[in-house]
């Protein structure tokens, strides 16, 4: 190309090539995400096929921190296996049968945070068949705008204690009902 006749042609071409490259990268990312999602579903569906009694399947999670919150990663070292893959008791990792919700009930709409944790605790209390796959099929990004940041530690601690209290009460109720039932059977 004659630069004397077309002095701006080369920068324009570079710009166009850059846009094409960005579009290509975006397309590759979307394809990668779609492929990963399909792989996740396929692998979890295989667990349901292998275990007909299974009602909930979840996976492990690996967290990663953006630069602005990297100090949190350091602070979390040594806490609850924060350095490695964690059990993903999150809706994002979950594949579940409709019957799980019919047996456990829906998420508690009164809870602003931790409604998924509460649901999984209720599932465990109800004896629902749940499988935690060893595979890491979710990557969780921590950044300065995570929704969970708007809660305070006091709120979080209070919520955890409420969940424990609820679980204790449910389990004690089951024991109490069982004892009452057995006592009734003993009388007849």
């Amino acid at each position, binding site marked *: 190309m004659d630069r004397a006749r077309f002095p701006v042609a080369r920068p324009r071409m570079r710009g166009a090539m850059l846009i094409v490259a960005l579009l290509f990268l975006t397309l590759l990312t979307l394809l990668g995400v779609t492929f990963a999602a399909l792989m996740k579903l396929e692998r979890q569906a295989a667990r349901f096929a292998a275990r007909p009694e299974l009602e909930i399947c979840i996976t492990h*999670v690996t967290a990663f921190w953006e630069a*602005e919150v990297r100090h949190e990663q350091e602070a979390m070292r040594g806490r*609850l296996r*924060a350095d490695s893959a964690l*059990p993903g008791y999150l809706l994002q990792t979950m594949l579940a049968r409709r019957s799980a919700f019919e047996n456990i009930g829906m998420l508690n709409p009164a809870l602003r945070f931790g409604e998924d944790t509460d649901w*999984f605790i209720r599932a465990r209390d109800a004896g629902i068949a749940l499988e935690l796959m060893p595979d890491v099929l979710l990557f969780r990004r921590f950044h*300065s705008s995570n929704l969970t*940041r*708007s809660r305070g530690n006091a709120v979080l601690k209070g919520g955890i204690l409420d969940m424990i209290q609820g679980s*204790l009460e449910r389990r004690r109720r089951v024991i109490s009902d069982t004892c009452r039932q057995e006592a009734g059977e003993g009388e007849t």
Partner: protein
Amino acid sequence: MSSQLHDDSCLVANDQDVAAKVVDGEAILINLTSGLYYTMDKVGGFVWSMIVRGSSVEQVSEAVAARYSVPLAQAREDVRRLVRELLDEKLIVLSMGSPEAAAPVGPAVENSQPYETPKLTRFDDMADMFALDPPLPELPALKTGGT
């Protein structure tokens, strides 16, 4: 830690790593570092409420003896054992300071309540469920910009 326990040792809840509340006299505690949680029955719940006030081992023992129909010697023995368990589980720490001077030792009740040896019950079935979002009290607050 527990070997340094004396009657005048001041007891403090490990607020950094522990969340706790007392419901109908029963204490529910969780160590957020380990994910283990605990319950303490009626007498244990009373002991916990005394620890939260910053009491010494002796103050707690006297309060238990005053509130329940139990000799001071037995109350002291049971409180010491329970406190050692709480220290071992890192639910409380010994404070270097002296006990709160104004810490109430609990009112003597006219009709003492029935006494049962306080017991710390430990559960480990939920540690994995709380692993993803442990509260981090030592972290500086971030400006929240998102929803």
